């Protein structure tokens, strides 16, 4: 379902994805009595246009790492570079989709998608882009609906459109499909991969679903328990569209389960 509207969104001004360098990133939260170290010496690179999945035990610090990449917080120590320059704050070229769609309930679906252009003062020039983004996620008919009228999957699609309308060079996904039912999840996995292939942006995906990581990503990075360290960095060299029964992927799945300490469940 690659519509004309979708193609228009594909022709971005900066077709290149973003390159990321994590240079020994440490991060700790200040609890009442002592600091809580969450990230320890995170060091890896992401090439432009890669789709990197981050796997790790719950609470190890994956979301924290994404917040640092988004520029919502500065790391306690170390640096993250975007195309060689340090990240100092949020920017619409790096957009985030969280597990909760967090749509603004007082705005219609269209006005939610228009949030980025409006905040950047580009509302007038981006009118068709906004409509295209809505069409891209298949929700043109719901432009005037309010978020409470949407199902979970539809709300997450709106959140995706709200991110994509900004023509990002890095798409940051924090368990974006985690709360959806399994059918919606599977179909949206396919859609996201297609979108990424067409648009060329770099993608960072946190997921707790190994199959999801294997189905979508070009590379999986496995983190240790908190404080998170990079435990393994595994390329997934399989062509798209992938098949969930692919024996190579099944083998990788066993390997990843082992790394996460769950080998006996296989």
């Amino acid at each position, binding site marked *: 379902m690659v519509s004309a509207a979708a193609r228009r969104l594909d022709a971005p001004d900066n077709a290149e994805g973003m390159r990321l360098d994590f240079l020994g990133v440490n991060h700790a939260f200040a609890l009442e009595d002592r600091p809580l170290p969450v990230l320890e010496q995170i060091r890896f690179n992401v090439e432009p246009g890669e789709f990197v999945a981050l796997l790790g035990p719950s609470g190890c610090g994956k979301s924290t790492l994404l917040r640092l990449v988004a520029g919502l917080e500065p790391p306690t120590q170390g640096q993250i570079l975007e195309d060689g320059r340090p990240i100092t704050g949020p920017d619409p070229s790096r957009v985030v989709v969280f597990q909760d769609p967090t749509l*603004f309930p007082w705005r219609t679906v269209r006005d939610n998608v228009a949030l980025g252009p409006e905040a950047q003062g580009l509302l007038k020039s981006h009118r068709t882009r906004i409509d295209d983004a809505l069409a891209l996620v298949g929700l043109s008919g719901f432009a005037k609906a309010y978020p409470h009228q949407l199902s979970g999957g539809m709300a997450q699609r709106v959140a995706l459109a709200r991110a994509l309308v900004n023509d990002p060079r890095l798409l940051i996904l924090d368990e974006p499909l985690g709360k959806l039912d399994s059918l919606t999840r599977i179909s949206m996995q396919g859609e996201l991969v297609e979108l990424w292939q067409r648009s060329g942006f770099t993608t960072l995906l946190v997921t707790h679903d190994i199959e999801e990581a294997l189905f979508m990503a070009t590379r999986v990075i496995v983190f240790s328990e908190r404080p998170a360290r990079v435990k393994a960095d595994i390329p997934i060299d399989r062509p798209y569209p992938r098949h969930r029964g692919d024996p190579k992927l099944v083998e990788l799945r066993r390997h990843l389960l082992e790394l996460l300490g769950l080998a006996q469940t296989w």
Partner: protein
Amino acid sequence: MDATIESTTTLAPDQVASSEDAPPRLWLGGLGAGIAWLAAALVVEFWPNFDDWAYTTELASAAGALGGGLLFASVAGRRLPGIDRLRSLAPWLVALALLLTSWEIFTAKLNLLPRPFFAPPQAFLEVYFEDWRRLGECVIRSLLLLAPGFFIGAALGFASGVALGWSRIAGYWGHPILRLIGPLPAIAWLPIAFFAFPSSWSASVFLIALASGIPVAILTWSGVAGVNSAFYDIARTLGASQRFLVLKVAVPAAMPHVFVGLFMGLASSFSVLVVAEMMGVKAGLGWYLQWAQGWAAYGNMYAALLVMAVMCSGLVTLLFKIRDRLLAWQKGLLRW
């Protein structure tokens, strides 16, 4: 991306099937209410009064006209516009007719209740017919006092609430002040206000502004402070400035709280209004009430109370209408 098509069709916009019941020939509730009001008219007109009461015939005619109208509506049924909204009112209309009839019997007809304190229904009519000019002027004077006070208070309360919730410095300095001043009833400032302000009108505007401003400030503040921080994160990654975060994120997210504050402020501004009119401003409904009491004109008092109730209730209804319009995005709003 086949799934997109699928999910859009499963949740197509509501198609409300309008029920095409055959229109009932006769509106039974309306028939009952019509008969009740006609009976009330007959009692008022033909049961002789214990004493002389003016406007007895007018009262009977009004009740009779209402009864006749209801009878007509019950027969004409569906063809009248707006009849559906009236339908559910039938029990209330019957009850009001019965209330009027028994009130009339206990006062005007049998004189069973102590006289100056309990006026018969026609005494209301007498007041409205003979004193409408003064009552109307009092309503206008009350509104002219209430409106500036409430709007100034709401605006300042809203602005300071946003500042308190947003700015650390404003919170640091404002919090202790609001904690000390907030719980104090605005009326307590009355002696100082009447002394410090050049006119009793400006003093009363100040008191009303204070009474309405403080709940608005507190609720706006808590609304802004309680905004889900994920909204800010989203807006910041999309390129929002500080100004955008305040005006387009914090303020709309706090609106439900702001309206709670506005309702509380409106209610307390009513009580300050009445007290201020009784104590200093020699005009308005509060003053009318006191004036009527001074002359033992209880009919006037009840009549003015009814007008005041209608006025306050009307203003609250207006505020509800505004809220329903502005907060249409919220689910499960309280209906007024």
